[in-house]
């Protein structure tokens, strides 16, 4: 297995394992058998959100999701966000453990903190280099958004 790529978010280095596929909404995808793949948040996403407090899904196993369909909601130390399907596909299962204890996302985002499995066509997903490039091109505006919002909201550390 080759070395993971790193993406610098200020002093923080987001780790991007090279064997994974990636989606533009900052989810990773681990290619599985019979077209069933596992998805979770990248360490980049987790760093933006900080500690995850609360996770809620609006979908059930067996349901067909369209790409970018709103599928849930997350609340973290610093942020809230809707959650959106990274690709179209059939939901095979949600990670029940992470629903019980969302902090798994914080401690092991590429392992026990996985989110769900989809039977899906993942040909549109990115490899690690493409995802790294995607992060680079988006980093400037993302930083501006977060800094300005935090200033406005008095959330600066």
């Amino acid at each position, binding site marked *: 297995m080759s070395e993971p790529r790193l993406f610098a978010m200020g002093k923080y280095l987001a780790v991007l394992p090279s064997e994974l596929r990636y989606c533009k909404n900052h989810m990773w995808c681990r290619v599985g058998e019979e077209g069933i793949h596992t998805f979770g948040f990248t360490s980049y996403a987790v760093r933006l959100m900080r500690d995850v407090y609360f996770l809620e899904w609006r979908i059930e196993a067996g349901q067909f999701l369209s790409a970018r369909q709103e599928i849930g909601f997350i609340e973290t130390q*610093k942020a809230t966000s809707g959650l959106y399907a990274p690709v179209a596909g059939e939901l095979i299962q949600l990670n029940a453990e992470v629903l019980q204890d969302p902090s798994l996302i914080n401690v092991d985002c590429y392992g026990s903190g996985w989110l769900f499995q989809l039977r899906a066509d993942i040909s549109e997903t990115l490899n690690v280099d493409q995802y790294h490039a995607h992060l680079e091109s988006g980093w400037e*505006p993302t930083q501006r958004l977060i800094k300005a919002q935090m200033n406005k909201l008095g959330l600066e550390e």
Partner: protein
Amino acid sequence: MTHRRLTVVISQSPGKHPQKRSLEESIVAALLGRPEYEVAVVPNLYDLGPDHTGLLFLQAVRGNLVVLSWLYPRAAFWILDRHGIKGHFGQTRLGQSEDTTEERETPSSEGIEPQSTPGIGPSGEIPNRWIYPLDLRDAERAEDVLAEIERITLECQQRHAPHPEGNTASTVSPIWVSLGLALQRNGSVPAEIDHLPAHPGVSSDTGEPSAPATFLGPTPRRWYPVIDYSRCTNCLECLDFCLFGVYGVDAWERILVENPDQCKKGCPACSRVCPQQAIMFPEYKSPAIAGAEIGAGGSVKIDLSKLFGGDGGDALSLAVAERDRELINAGRQAVGMSVGIPKRQAHKADQPKDELDKLVDDLDNLGL
């Protein structure tokens, strides 16, 4: 003359979030031993229907009122206003950093509402009392809330507000249906009491309050717009835009939410077309629509939805798409931009973009 009791009402979290429920219970428990407070527990304020006993209780309170809820203060305040529970907006310091609190003046007891706002203001007479909506999400611990209630108590005493004419809180006898849910595990209250004690919540031997008044009748989840009349200019664009008959006007041609339950669950479209951001959906995920005071220094969380794949697009396109979706769900024809589109939107590009517009544009260009 003794100081009047301050009524503290806890509006429960609609879900069964254990941490939230635990905070509610801690606050109730701490306030119960305090004769200067009248404590009541109601279900989520937003969900209360017009006949709910919790609402009848709130309407009977005449004195100063602290409302603890899981809603933004603006949202809670104007939900109460809609139900005829009116007063001056009591500014909380909960969740505010020190430097901003220094600048805040206690409003004069002569003042009606903040004068700088362009809105038409609440209808009818504003009784001479203060309503303090506190957002429990601003509190990390029960102690934070209790300290703020103490501060409010002092502020109310210092204000020397004369009693409003007519009856006072102490003479009102609402129906006290004590389910005692919050405290039954302490063994002080049986699980269900269904009688009317002479002095509700006060134990007969010690005179100390032993249980909060609870009005926890079932409340189906509701979804409807809440108008902030301190911002609303009565432009009636929401009336034109909504095709489900939610809005109407009163006898004075003032906009009102006439048929709240005709509103389509999850759809915040009218809020997006409101030029004053006066329409709130208190349970919508985006803080601005849910009633957050953006920039007011509250501990609002940032919304990262756009980074994680949420739809971009300008507010009007979003609103039109949301409206079309609801029309189709209701078996009607989508109307797109053909009906009820505010004319000002055609000139929207003329307005200078504010900082947030620019940021959002940046995100749109990310091409998620």
